[in-house]
């Protein structure tokens, strides 16, 4: 699965740490998602989508 998390975060001018604290996860988790090492659970994906005001499909794409 690929995602646009890094791009969306950069657009908001947020650091990984800032995004992590808004989502209640660690910075390492954000980095793992951005680098494609980890696919988030559905609840976390919904939280990310809600935070950026996008649908899940706009952020996460099946390869």
């Amino acid at each position, binding site marked *: 699965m690929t995602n646009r998390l*890094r791009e969306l975060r950069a657009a908001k001018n947020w650091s990984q740490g800032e995004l992590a604290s808004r989502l209640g996860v*660690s910075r390492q*988790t954000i*980095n793992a998602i*951005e*680098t*494609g090492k*980890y696919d988030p659970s559905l609840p976390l994906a919904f939280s990310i989508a809600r935070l950026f005001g996008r649908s899940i499909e706009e952020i996460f794409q099946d390869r």
Partner: protein
Amino acid sequence: MSSATTKRLGAAIVLVLAPVLHVAPGSTWIRTTAAIAAGLMMIFFSKERIHDERVQDLKLKALSAAFSVSFALTLIVNWFLNRDFDPRRDVDGATGVLRSISAFELIALTMVVALALFHYWRFQDSSPSSAEPEDVSA
């Protein structure tokens, strides 16, 4: 008890109590390994500072891999311990003893491997991918 306190207590058991038990009069190796196993379990199973889904995922993966590795090591060590054991001669005639790693040693070994894997993978999560070396400092 907070998770940080549990971790500190686990570390104290491994680093202080286990050696003290080991050198105490009348000590047995099994008592030492029981303390080490208990301390390592407290460290591994206590919550991290930010205990999110990635931490749970990595801990489960580390524990699964560690159990397989330590079980394989147990089989290898047991084979060396018992390489002269002859079931026909030693069981029927009761002249030999079938030796094995203890359960505490297996647990301690599993916890050491699991902790090493978990922290290695956590460290890898901190590293940016080579393609996109951007912002992990914040």
